[in-house]
C-alpha cells in the first residue's frame, strides 16, 4: 500500500496540509483560546463575587453552552446569525463560537481555582488596606491562574483538534484541506495518517509550551 506513488503523494501534500494547519487551524485555536480565557476569567469573577443577577446570567450561559454539542452551536451560529442580520466570514464566526464555547468551560475552571485560594489571602489584603479589585488583581487571580493553567492548557490542546469541526461551517482548515487532497487522489488512508501525524506534532509542541509556561508562572518557591 505504501508504494512509491503513495510516498510521493505524502511528500507533496505535506506542505499543503501543514500550510492550512499554520494558517487556519492554529490561528483559530490560539485566538479562540486567548479570547475564551479572558471571557472565562470575567465570568468566573462575576460568579466568585456572587454578583446578583449577572451571576445568574453567567450560570445560564454556562448551562446552555455545556449542555449542547459544539457542532450544534456552530450550526446555530452559521444559520442563525444571518437571520439576525449578522454576516461575517466563516473563520470569524468559528472564532466567536469556539470562544463562547470554551469560555464556559474555562469560567468553571477559573471559578474553582479562585475558590481554592484560601480566604485568609483576601482577608490579609483587606487588612493592608487594599480594595476588592486590587486584591483580585494582585493576589487572587495570579494564584488562581497558576492553579488553573494546566487545565486551561489542556483545553487548548483539545481545541486544536476540535477545530476540524469548523469545516461544518465551510472553514477550510487542516483536516478539510486533507479531505480535499485525498478526494483528488482517491488515496484516503495515508493522508489521514499524515494529518493525524501533524496534529500530533502540534500537540507535542503545545505540551512542551505548557511545561515552559508552568515553569514561567513558577510555583512561588514551593517546589524549588
Amino acid at each position: 500500500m505504501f508504494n512509491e506513488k503513495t510516498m510521493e503523494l505524502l511528500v507533496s501534500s505535506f506542505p499543503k496540509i501543514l500550510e492550512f494547519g499554520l494558517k487556519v487551524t492554529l490561528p483559530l485555536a490560539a485566538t479562540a483560546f486567548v479570547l475564551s480565557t479572558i471571557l472565562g476569567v470575567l465570568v468566573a469573577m462575576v460568579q466568585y463575587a456572587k454578583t446578583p443577577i449577572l451571576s445568574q446570567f453567567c450560570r445560564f450561559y454556562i448551562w446552555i453552552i455545556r449542555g449542547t454539542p459544539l457542532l450544534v452551536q456552530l450550526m446555530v451560529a452559521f444559520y442563525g446569525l444571518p437571520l439576525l442580520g449578522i454576516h461575517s466570514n466563516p473563520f470569524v464566526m468559528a472564532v466567536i463560537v469556539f470562544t463562547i464555547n470554551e469560555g464556559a468551560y474555562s469560567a468553571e475552571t477559573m471559578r474553582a481555582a479562585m475558590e481554592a485560594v484560601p480566604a485568609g489571602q483576601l482577608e490579609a489584603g483587606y487588612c493592608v488596606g487594599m480594595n476588592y479589585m486590587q486584591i483580585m488583581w494582585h493576589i487572587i487571580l495570579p494564584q488562581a491562574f497558576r492553579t488553573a493553567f494546566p487545565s486551561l492548557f489542556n483545553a487548548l490542546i483539545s481545541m486544536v483538534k476540535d477545530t476540524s469541526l469548523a469545516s461544518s461551517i465551510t472553514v477550510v482548515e487542516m483536516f478539510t484541506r486533507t479531505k480535499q487532497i485525498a478526494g483528488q487522489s482517491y488515496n484516503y488512508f495515508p493522508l489521514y495518517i499524515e494529518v493525524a501525524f501533524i496534529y500530533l506534532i502540534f500537540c507535542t509542541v503545545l505540551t512542551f509550551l505548557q511545561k515552559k509556561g508552568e515553569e514561567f508562572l513558577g510555583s512561588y518557591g514551593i517546589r524549588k
Partner: protein
Amino acid sequence: MALLEVNNIHKSFGGNNVLKGVSLKVEKGDVISVLGPSGSGKTTLLRCINFLEKADGGELVFEDKKYDLSRMSRASIAEIRMHTGFVFQNYNLFANKTAIQNVTLGLTSARRVAKDKAAKKAMGVLKKVGMGDYADYYPSQLSGGQQQRVAIARALATDPKIIYFDEPTSALDPQLTAEVLEVMRNLAREGMTMIVVTHEISFAREVSTKVMFMADGVVVEEGPAAEFFENPQMERTKEFLRLTGK
C-alpha cells in the same frame, strides 16, 4: 482621649451568641493582652473590630469619630483600615509574593506610594524584624517564625496607629515563638499601640499595660497587668490562671 473605644459589641453566628456586649478602651501606647479559654470569642472580637466579621451591634470610636458597628459604610471601613494593622494566627502572607512584595503591596497598591519609596520603607521594616536577608524569599521558603515576622513587617510598613494580633505565636514551636515575641516586645518598647490575643501568659505579664480576660463572650475581668496577675478578683480568672500555670 482614647485612640480606640469599643462599646457594647454584639455578635452571634446563627443562634450562637459569641460576643455578648464587650467593651474596651485603648489609649495610645497601650499594649492590651486579651486572655481567655478557647471559644470565648477573642478572635471574633478582633475580627469584628477590623470588619472581617460584621458585628450585630455596638459602637466604635476611632480617633474621636463614632461609628455604628452594625452599619459601617464601605468608605469608613476603608478609612479605618488605612490606620490599622492585623497579624493573623496563620500569617496569611500572600503566597504569590516574595517577603518584600508582601510588605510593599499595601503601600504601592492601597496607598499609591512610589515603588522605590515603598521598597526602601519595606527593607527598613524587614530589617527591624530581623528579616532583611530574606527579602526575596517566598513564604513557602520561610519557617513559621520567619513568616510571622514578615507578616508583622507587613503590618508595620503602613505606619498603623494600632496593630491587632490574633495569637501570633500559637502555631509556632517554643524557639520560633521566642523570635516573634522578641519582635513584639521591641514594638511595645517603642510605644506601638497593640491588642494582643495570646496564650503566652509571661508575655502578657511582662509586656502589656492592661490585661482583659474573656469567657463566654463577656469580659470577666480587666485591669493593669501587674494588678491582674498579682491580685485577680474573680473566681473564673483565678481558675484560668491556675490552669495555665500561673
